[in-house]
């Protein structure tokens, strides 16, 4: 049972072939990657392009609350906000999803109903991933059964850093299997790397390929619980990986930077990067998401500024 595209069958056959492949990927020059990310960050997005980018960014937000103190009330409020981010403006698009812990999935699902806004649930002993595999799988099944449309799993960073690539691979494959629903559909699987712990861009490229070969629908930078979370250069390396993966296999994989993206200006920098590195096909909520909580309000404020010409204060937007 594997999701690997056939062209990569040989790669995932043994631990050593997997290692050879991952270590044979072209290296990432840190200085060059960071310079490229910074260069893309200087694009100047104005007027019609900005309006397009703001709406697209809103549609890509996975509105997130992952706190120990979360309450059903807060989750319901978040879900309501995801469906109608700007109650004063019916032309404002809905967010992509709300992202919660497994025990809040049912509450979120109930509020969201058939609105089209997805419920994403973190799973697999989020955020550390330090639990036995069957516990992670049970965690996943629990969220899927409660109605989660998307599962955000964390990889075993300890295993990855120790070079046990096969174990990480097998675990992703197993979690993906656990995403299957009884009706034959799957919850979509996002694989969180926690790039702040993996540290090097070479590792980011390797883990991206590992997850894609294991069948990830999305690759995601971070849990938001570790600093640094999402950064432009890390996302650059991941976008290059999904681009190259499609080139080789024909399959598209989505990318989700999460954590630390707070302003519309930042979000637009990411969209410019998606546009110029992966290409226009990724400029869609099915293929690119922002994991964020405070970002949405800034997007809304900028959007209101674009449509009315006036800046309104934070008091005019709902707090989550």
């Amino acid at each position, binding site marked *: 049972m594997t999701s690997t595209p056939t062209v990569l069958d040989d790669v995932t056959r043994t631990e050593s072939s997997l290692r050879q492949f991952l270590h044979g990927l*072209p*290296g*990432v*020059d840190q*200085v*060059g*990657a960071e*310079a*490229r990310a910074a260069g893309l960050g*200087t*694009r*100047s*997005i*104005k*007027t*019609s*392009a*900005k309006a*397009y*980018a703001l709406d*697209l960014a809103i549609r890509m937000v996975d509105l997130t609350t992952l706190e120990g103190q979360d309450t059903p009330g807060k989750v319901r409020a978040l879900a309501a906000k995801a469906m109608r981010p700007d109650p004063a403006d019916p032309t404002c698009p809905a967010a992509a999803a709300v992202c919660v812990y497994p025990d809040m999935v049912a509450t979120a699902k109930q509020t969201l109903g058939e609105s089209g806004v997805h419920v994403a649930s973190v799973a697999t002993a989020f955020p550390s991933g330090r639990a036995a595999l069957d516990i992670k799988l049970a965690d996943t099944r629990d969220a899927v059964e409660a109605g989660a449309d998307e599962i955000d799993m964390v990889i075993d960073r300890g295993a990855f850093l120790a070079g046990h690539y096969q174990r990480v691979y097998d675990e992703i494959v197993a979690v993906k299997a656990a995403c299957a629903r009884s009706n034959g559909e799957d919850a979509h699987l996002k694989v969180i790397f926690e790039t702040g712990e993996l540290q090097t861009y070479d590792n980011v490229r390797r883990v991206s390929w590992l997850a894609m070969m294991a069948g990830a629908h999305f690759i995601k930078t971070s849990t938001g619980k570790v600093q640094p979370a999402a950064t432009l250069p890390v996302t650059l390396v991941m976008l*290059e990986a999904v681009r190259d993966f499609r080139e080789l296999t024909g399959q598209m994989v989505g990318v989700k930077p999460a954590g630390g993206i707070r302003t519309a200006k930042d979000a637009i920098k990411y*969209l*410019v990067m998606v*546009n*110029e590195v992966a290409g*226009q*096909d990724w*400029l*869609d909520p099915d293929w690119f998401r922002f994991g964020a909580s405070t970002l949405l309000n800034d997007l809304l404020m900028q959007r209101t500024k674009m449509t009315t010409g006036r800046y309104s204060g934070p008091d005019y937007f709902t707090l989550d």
Partner: protein
Amino acid sequence: MTTPFDYAPAPESRSIVDIKPSYGLFINGEFVDGHGKSFKTISPATEEVLAEVAEADDADVDAAVKAARRAYDRVWSRMPGRERAKYLYRIARIIQERSRELAVLESIDNGKPIKESRDVDIPIVAAHFFYYAGWADKLEYAGRGADPRPLGVAGQIIPWNFPLLMLAWKIAPALACGNTVVLKPAETTPLTALLFAEICQQADLPPGVVNIITGAGGTGQALVAHPGIDKVAFTGSTDVGKAIARTVAGTDKKVTLELGGKAANIVFDDAPLDQAVEGIVTGIFFNQGHVCCAGSRLLVQESIADELLAKLKRRMSTLRVGDPLDKNTDVGAINSAEQLARIRELSDIGEAEGAGRWSPECVLPQHGFWFPPTIFTGVTQAHRIAREEIFGPVLSVLTFRTPAEAVEKANNTPYGLSAGIWTEKGSRILKIASQLRAGVVWANTFNKFDPTSPFGGYKESGYGREGGRHGLEAYLR
């Protein structure tokens, strides 16, 4: 719903610059009318006439050299280094304060994208003045003996590709060492040099320390041949450089020449490919390829050639060619009709010689001088496009199989200004770099400039070094 993410125009405002209808010559601290005819400087992006500029004749050159000599004898050579430094620091700060104005003017007159004049040219200009200001009172530590002396009056001639940056490379070390200068900017790009003259006035620089005379080849010839100068510093084409060397032969004028190049950018199969693609793009499409150290020959290891070229072509498709003042423009206008004709001629020759020509689809503006980013594949060492400097956004792609072949091909050129090496293997970088006959070798980067780093060429790329401690040697005896 996926629609293309078209970037709306984001033009930098021109209102910050005030271009006068006509400009005189800057001699002895004042703008004066020239005795010669005047000529027009145009915007290469629109062909709009920007200003009339005086053409200095022999009498004007003589007046400028005499002003520089007076300032040298009476003020500048006697001034303690720490006092000279104050003027240089002041100039550097004014450049920073007026950086937007300088950047916009540079882009208008030269055609280069505003993001390059704003983020590269002008910041390095200021950095150059800051750097050499720091040297002015420490010259006895420059390795030229305990009491190094200035040369006298320097005649300096600069090209149109980095107008203000080349001015800074010339003027900052000359002044720091106690020389005075007569500088001639290129005839197609005189405006930022003339704005720099205003900055000298604003900084209260003593009259005659910096003189700026505008004109074409004849003016430059008169300056080089003038008996009153002690030093010639030239950046430009190899042909003109050779003519200058002939003119000063037999005199005791010191000369530094920074001439053309045909740099090899060598990509090994273990290179960081995505960054190498960026480096290739920066190497040849930065500043429309109007860069003497441009990486105009790509030498790629055969085993990765197809993959790299596919990545390069995809990347080139995202280059935005157009209005230099648009903040999202990556490739601006070719500087002049003359240069455009030369790029077209050599590209046509490349095609006729059998190389495969490719450019991304891009709509070029109706007016002005434009050439799309272009690569030629299947190029051999025997092709003219692999040997002659095109000085435009045109890349010749060659392949190699072994490191020895890469080095042989890289060195097989009359030039020797720069080279690039792309590999993740440190030992290979060191070994290949030591075998390349080029003044600058970049490893896993390209076209990076810093005032602390010496720059200059081997063979027909000229002699002498600019920048860093080495740059002082050209202005001290």
